[in-house]
């Protein structure tokens, strides 16, 4: 197999604490190609920090070590700040949970979509506007002109997340990290946004790292699933094999969700399932 898009070997992230170094991500290794990889785990499992590490956006206190952290063959462990900036938004992009907070409230949506172009291309203002409008209609807006001129508070959550996707994909990055990108939305919108992301990923031939706590939700869209717990990857399997998963923690996550069968009963928690 050719060099994958992203290759991580032995990634460890720790924060200095009074008891010494506290590792929150411990020797995590995986690869991502032009595919959809879901990283699933409870909050605190280290999945978001792993995503941030790929962007070089961990808080300055965090200490990161990795045997390999390479993107398109480039070594990220020793990348200068200016090279990081050239990479972010143009080759790797990040979408956060809630557009209410991740969009700048005092900047028009159009300007925020165009900012990614402004930072990485030398297009004229008019070309940027045209591209932004085209991108906005591509993520599903019927009236890109109006959205372009709106402030984020004038958009609903689903619309905000579409605008966010437009801003992040306008430079056609090769890898997109979606960090709980649908968790703030209601169920129908979650499916819509995931379908949009999945469709664009295949269309643009890029890789998508889908970070989520909802295994059942992402399982339908991902090619492969990595299950993280307490900073390590405890299970990895193809999405099609999830029905036959054997790892107890994967099973626990799989069952921690209401369905027709569980109606009226107390849902099992992860702790229950992990009891011997």
């Amino acid at each position, binding site marked *: 197999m050719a060099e994958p898009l992203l290759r991580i070997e032995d990634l460890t992230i720790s924060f200095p604490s009074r008891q010494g170094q506290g590792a929150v991500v411990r020797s995590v290794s995986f690869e991502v190609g032009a595919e959809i990889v879901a990283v699933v785990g409870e909050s605190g499992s280290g999945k978001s920090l792993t995503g941030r590490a790929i962007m070089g956006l961990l808080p300055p206190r965090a200490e990161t070590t990795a045997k390999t952290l390479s993107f398109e063959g480039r070594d990220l462990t020793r990348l200068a700040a200016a090279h990081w900036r050239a990479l972010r938004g143009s080759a790797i992009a990040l979408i956060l949970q809630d557009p209410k907070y*991740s969009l700048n409230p*005092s900047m028009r949506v159009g300007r925020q979509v165009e900012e990614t172009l402004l*930072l990485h291309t030398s297009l004229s203002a008019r070309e940027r506007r045209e591209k932004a409008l085209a991108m906005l209609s591509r993520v599903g807006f019927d009236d890109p002109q109006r959205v372009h001129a709106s402030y984020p508070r004038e958009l609903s959550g689903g619309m905000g997340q579409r605008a966010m996707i437009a801003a992040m994909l306008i430079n056609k990055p090769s890898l997109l990290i979606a960090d709980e990108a649908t968790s703030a939305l209601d169920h129908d919108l979650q499916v819509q946004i995931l379908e949009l992301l999945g469709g664009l990923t295949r269309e643009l031939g890029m890789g998508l790292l889908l970070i989520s706590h909802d295994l059942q939700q992402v399982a339908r869209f991902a090619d492969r699933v990595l299950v993280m717990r307490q900073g390590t990857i405890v299970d990895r399997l193809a999405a099609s094999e999830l029905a036959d998963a054997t790892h107890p923690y994967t099973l626990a996550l799989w069952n921690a969700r209401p369905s027709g069968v569980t109606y009226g009963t107390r849902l099992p928690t992860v702790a229950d399932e992990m009891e011997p």
Partner: protein
Amino acid sequence: MHFVWVALRWLISLALTLLGLVVVTFAMTRLSPVDPATQMVGSHASASSYQAAREALGLDQPLPIQFLHYLRMAASGDFGQSISTGQPVASDIARTFPATLELATVAIIMGAALGLCLGIFAAMRPGGVFDAVARLISLVGYSVPIFWLGLLMLLLFYARLHWAPGPGRLDVLFQYTVPARTGFVLLDTWLSGKPGAFRDALAHLALPATVLMFYALAGIARLTRALVLTELGQEYALTAYAKGAAVHRVVFVHVLPNIAGQLITICALAYASLLEGAVLTETVFAWPGIGRYLTTAMFAGDMPAILGGTIVIGASFVLLNTLTDLAVGRTARGRA
């Protein structure tokens, strides 16, 4: 139509606040143990002259009538005669208030500019060298007594180095030759066209303005740093980084428009506190401002002067607040 309604609401709230101010100051005169009639005629006066003074001051009238009378006086800017200076309070204030306003304005312009810069650049690299220096400066500005700083500066620049001119706002040479047209020496000396007069005024202003600036800068820098740091931790800042923006772009393009309103408020509050409380600086530098005037009046129990000064300072507070609110409403966050 909408605009008219908004303007009307502003005016009404402004008028009500001012009315509240007048009520409070009126209550001050009637609740204070100082009897204005005794203040006027002295404690050894005969019963008849005491009575005459009471009638002249209108103290024999019922309270509501007295209040209306007082309201009319306050509205026309006539606060009566100062007991300690023997001059109308209005003319005393017209002399002293511009001195304080000039000092405070120069100090806040410098203090806000420097304080904002210190705070913003310190927040860009928390824990860095610049941050440490900025924090030291604002810590010193916060904790060193302002009069001590003033005295030290006088000792150094006036007594030792002879760089700074003596006390007051102008040299004796210019004091009686420059006509007081606006009450602001910088403007008056500029308008007079006398060679050296403007420079002399500037030299007199330099030390007290620097001391006050330092005091204002400390608070502004600290609050600005905290605000910028908090905003940099928000998700929209992380998003901007994820697009490939550098820290200066994140701060100047994304963060500052979002906190512009708070920064304006911080500076306005610092300005207000300079207007009211430059007493120590005015005393140390013999600056004939309203802070010193009011303090002297308080020790002398000079009720008309205290009331006049309080109303003028109170009114400028209210005005400043209103202007600040209007400005905050014009910022990006306010509109968005």
